[in-house]
């Protein structure tokens, strides 16, 4: 059947009145089938399921399970496979669901989806604007494409560079540790206490732990990756002191640690906290809880750092900070090298607080800075709205563990990256209590297909139809 239809099609010199709503832009099966039926030949539904008489086509009765026999009518409304095509001469053509045909709503600017005189033709009016919009967009996407390619190339080098530096710094840390170990042995009593046991029994009853303690200072221990700190004893119930946060922050905060210094500090603290359980046994023995509870009068420096190792410690601190910053950058390029250019990028926008804040009387008109660091954290005014927590699909970024809303969940954010020539924050919305969504335009999100689709769209607007028009 299909073969026959095709052959006949080739024999046609010119197209007769074309069914309204049928897409004639390409010589698709659909086109062929309709042409055949217009000559009185049987029509096969496009899914191949049913063969109909030619008179069944476009007779305002849906015969095909896939709705393919009624491109001009709404008879197959609700079957989504195929739709109605508005030519929209002078503007952009459009595919509609069959459900839009003859439904009392003007969807096509040429009015072809509604009965004659049902809709005024507005294609001439909107056409130029549509064209201008498409062209501007095409320009934008082209630029975005170029930048993206550039970022792909640069990213490759950058990542190599970062990786090398990271390895170097890791080696430095190891070296510094050796220095400190010796240093710590001379003044073990000055080391830092971060954790305490919830049990009243002292930790250091085990002689082996005492031995361990002599090897390295507890400060050094903290600088060590968890895996290097020996066996994990989970049997001991341990809690971390609250004061740890405050002190650990000053411990690691340093202007040299990059644009996201503060955030790095916090992350560092989390690291401490997580390793706390693992190696407190080796760390704690000689230190008293009281050294924390009376901390007001004691400066953090004094508690963290044995004076004799101060310069070593500072170097260690700076190195660690740099290392951390690099790790964070490398996290940004986990998916693709090209994202390197966003590793240090923060976007700011003044916006109204939404919803939750609206409940506070008088706050409705307050404008607050929304600051989004793409692979770091998000702040709205002074409130943390979450930290980067990984990718969500191809062009989505997830931020979680923000500050808790009063009586609500922790704030979180999702970002959708859209293709654009520049990186800019488009919109922020609270979609459910303390869950936000934002859109960001950026070149890295430009895909080749964006350009192809646009070119198609433009072609349809610029180039007039290849086929003769339906005289009706």
């Amino acid at each position, binding site marked *: 059947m299909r073969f026959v239809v095709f052959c006949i099609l080739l024999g046609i010199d010119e197209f007769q009145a074309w069914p309204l709503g049928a897409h004639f832009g390409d010589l698709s099966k659909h086109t062929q089938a309709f042409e055949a039926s217009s000559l009185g030949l049987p029509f096969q539904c496009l899914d191949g399921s049913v063969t109909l008489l030619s008179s069944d086509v476009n007779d305002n009765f849906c015969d095909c399970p896939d709705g393919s026999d009624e491109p001009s009518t709404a008879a197959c*409304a609700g079957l989504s496979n195929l739709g109605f095509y508005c030519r929209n001469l002078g503007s952009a053509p459009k595919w509609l669901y069959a459900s839009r045909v003859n439904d*009392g709503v003007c969807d096509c600017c040429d009015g072809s989806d509604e009965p004659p005189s049902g809709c005024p033709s507005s294609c001439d009016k909107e056409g130029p604007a549509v064209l201008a919009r498409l062209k501007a967009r095409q320009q934008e996407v082209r630029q975005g494409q170029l930048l993206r390619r550039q970022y792909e190339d640069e990213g490759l080098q950058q990542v190599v560079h970062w990786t090398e530096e990271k390895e170097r710094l890791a080696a430095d840390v190891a070296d510094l540790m050796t220095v400190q170990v010796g240093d710590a042995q001379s003044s073990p009593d000055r080391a830092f206490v971060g954790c305490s046991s919830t049990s009243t029994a002292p930790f250091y009853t085990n002689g082996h732990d005492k031995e361990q303690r002599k090897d390295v200072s507890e400060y050094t221990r903290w600088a060590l990756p968890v895996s290097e700190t020996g066996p994990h004893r989970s049997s001991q119930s341990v809690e971390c002191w609250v004061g740890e946060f405050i002190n650990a922050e000053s411990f690691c905060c340093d202007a040299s640690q990059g644009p996201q210094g503060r955030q790095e500090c916090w992350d560092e603290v989390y690291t401490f906290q997580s390793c706390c359980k693992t190696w407190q046994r080796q760390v704690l023995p000689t230190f008293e809880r009281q050294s924390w509870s009376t901390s007001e009068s004691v400066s953090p420096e004094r508690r963290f750092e044995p004076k004799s190792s101060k310069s070593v410690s500072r170097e260690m601190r700076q190195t660690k900070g740099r290392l951390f910053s690099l790790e964070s950058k490398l996290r940004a390029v986990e998916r693709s090298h090209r994202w390197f250019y966003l590793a240090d990028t923060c976007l700011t926008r003044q916006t109204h607080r939404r919803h939750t804040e609206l409940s506070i009387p008088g706050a409705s008109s307050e404008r607050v800075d929304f600051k989004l660091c793409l692979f770091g954290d998000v702040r709205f005014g002074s409130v943390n709205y979450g930290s980067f927590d990984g990718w969500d699909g191809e062009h989505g970024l997830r931020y979680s563990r923000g500050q808790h809303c009063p009586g609500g969940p922790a704030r979180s954010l999702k970002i959708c990256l859209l293709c654009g020539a520049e990186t800019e924050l488009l919109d922020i*919305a609270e979609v459910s209590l303390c869950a936000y969504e934002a859109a960001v335009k950026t070149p890295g999100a430009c895909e080749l297909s964006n350009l192809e689709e646009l070119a198609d769209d433009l072609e349809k607007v610029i180039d007039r139809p290849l086929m003769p028009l339906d005289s009706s």
Partner: protein
Amino acid sequence: MVRMRITEIKPLHIRHEIPPGDVVSDPPPAAAKVSEADESGKSIFKFATADGTAAEAILHHSPLALEVSVGGQILQRLNARNMLNFERYRTPKERLPPDTASVAAPDTVLLDAAAHPNGLDTNGLWEEPFGGHTDQKPRGPASLGMDVSFLGDVPSLFGLPEHATKASLPFYQEPYRFFNLDVFEYEIDEPMALYGAIPIIWAIHRLGGGQTVSSGFLWINPSETFVKLERDTPDGKGGPAHAWWTSESGVLDTVVMVGPTPKTVSAQFHDLTGHGPMPGLWALGKHQCRWNYMSEKDVATVDSMYDKYDIPYDTIWLDIEHTDGKAYFSWNAAAFPNPKQMIDNISAKRRKFVNVVDPHIKKDEKFHVYREVRDKGFFVKKVSYKQIDDPTDVKPADWVEETKIPDPTATQPPEWNTEEDGPWVAPQIDNPAYKGAWHPRKVNDPTPDLTDFEGWCWPGTSLYPDFTDPAMREYWGSQFALDKYTGTNADTYIWNDMNEPSVFNGPEVTMPRDAIHPNGMVEHRDVHNMYGYYVHRATFEGLQKRTPGDRPFVLTRSFFIGSHKYSAIWTGDNYAQWSHLKASIAMVGALTLGGQSLVGADVGGFFKHPDTEMTVRWYQLAVLIYPFLRNHAHLETPRREPYVFDEKTMLRIKASLQMRYKMLPLWYTLFHRWASAAEPVVRPLFWDFLDDPQTHENEEALESQIMLGDSLLVHGIAKPSSEQSEATVYLPKASGWYSIHNGAFKAPGAHVHKLDLDSIPAYYRAGTVVPLKSRIRRSSACMSLDPFTLNVYLNPQTGAAKGRLYIDDYRTRTYQDVGLLCARKIDFTCSARLGTRTHHAKASFEETLKSSH
């Protein structure tokens, strides 16, 4: 039907009576031709029901009892167990002046705690503390109560909405409570009070000779009401069933609907309370709501996402966050700078818009509604109780107030020299006759200070208009005029939430009972369960005036008998739990038996987040059995619009919604049957299959299944597939059933149905013609001129099928005012022997109705 009212002659305070027309139609239904005869100790009334069934009511004089029988069989006996009680208003003894000896003579018949000689507990009669609040009860106790017995073998009782209980009412130890409350996260299978009250019981009576009839009993009282269901048998099954009612105040007003069929019980209920109006067709479509869509852009996005996936829906809703600081009738200008344009854009797609307008009024001098209602004196008042001097108490003439008197025993000493010492004065002594300083008696200030009652609700300090006042309702209604309620258009409709009323800092989160409604100085306790009714009625009447000829739409959370004349209701703040999905079947069924056919539960649950399977199952059930079909969600939940799910889930939801839209002609025709013939749109199985005992007692069938009209049986699936892979569907006695999904024929009886995620069991009754529309568009209005499809499900024995089709303009009152409607019976007969072949016929329709769009 038989109505019995008892009130007090010349009460000390006016006993609150519901104004005529509010619940019982005004004028009330014409009295049947009654033959009345008085015999010794009883009066006999004989009458016939509308369908000609002979009925009889025998009033026994002492002790008072009313027996109602149909066809010679006694169905109900009122006060059968002599629990009639009627506390008459009286002056509190404790507050009488001590020199008054008057004590009311105790009644020997009526139990009256306030004056009972046998020392009943009188605590709380004149003042009652509760949860940090004190109910002043200045008028004292005024409760009333009575029992009613449902006779014969009564396998099940139904009704008593609104309770989150079972379809076949459990005989709990605790009584069912009617006290409209803003309940937070309600429990399932409990007699606790919820948001609304329709105190109606439906009974099924199995009589001798295999005859089964049904009857109804209505308790019309808007004060707090309890009803305890009881059985004689210890196992709680079979035999007669009893209901013991008690209300806090008002008059005793009961109606026995004698039936004897479910259809006639429904007809009698609606004769009494009025028929519901046709809803606009769009109200039966899909409603998309959320607490909250946050901005105009948010609204536009939700709307366009439905279009993107070609999913039909009719109405988008905004909850409280759209307002300026919860001052209703206003807009948050930052998020909704141009609401009129936003709503016009929705209108342009032939869709509708609903805004929430709650009855609590923000106390804010800048808010015109606050100022105006305050200045008109329409706010509910708080009484500042104080005691004053009794003006009738005058100082007795013989009252001795002198504390000192000259000592009478003293005499002038002989040596007293008057010239030198001055006149002799007897020394003062304490006056033995001194009675103390006189103070008039303290009595309650008969005209205490009334100030506007202030409570807390969403806006903070809020005031509550007295909606029982017709003048207040008139004012309220006028606020919906398009030139008053800026930003709205004629496609904007209203949702009244929190109208129990909800008072966050009040006793049980509602208004104190001793608050005063200035309209008639009625205490809130007297009208509490009707507050919500008056709110939504005021809104309905306002919308009627706003757009004359239009069919208003109001959704209310709180309701009372008669709410069906004005509003849709939903079952309040349910939970995303399988148990709530299941309970909604019984809750919807009970509400429709109470006359409220435009009803539904929040699809997917309000609190918490349903997983995809629960969401799909909920939609599959809701599209077939919720007349009011709304998806709603709590502020703290993730979004759950159909398009946010994975594609498979989205397509399943879409298929369900498409099925709903396909079936809209059936729904609409059923609503015509409701509005014109009192037939509930959705109803428990017994309503159509009273002669099938399984529909009275098969628990699985009663709790999982329900009928849409007389043609479609639906079985809800309320467990995840991990726990349930098949369902036993009970198909009642009929000529057969056809699967809605694949047309497979099934004989009546129990069938095991293998489950998949694409559908839930649902069967058309053989012998029915179902009107459908096969073109599914983006809203019901877009489908209004599309052709109909009639699906014919033949009775295999007779080859015949019957159905109905109702058409009007879907949105105005012309169907009522000028009879512009088309209501057709469809009779399909087939003379030839039937095969199993499917026949597609083509037909063209001339539209007889012009769309007035």
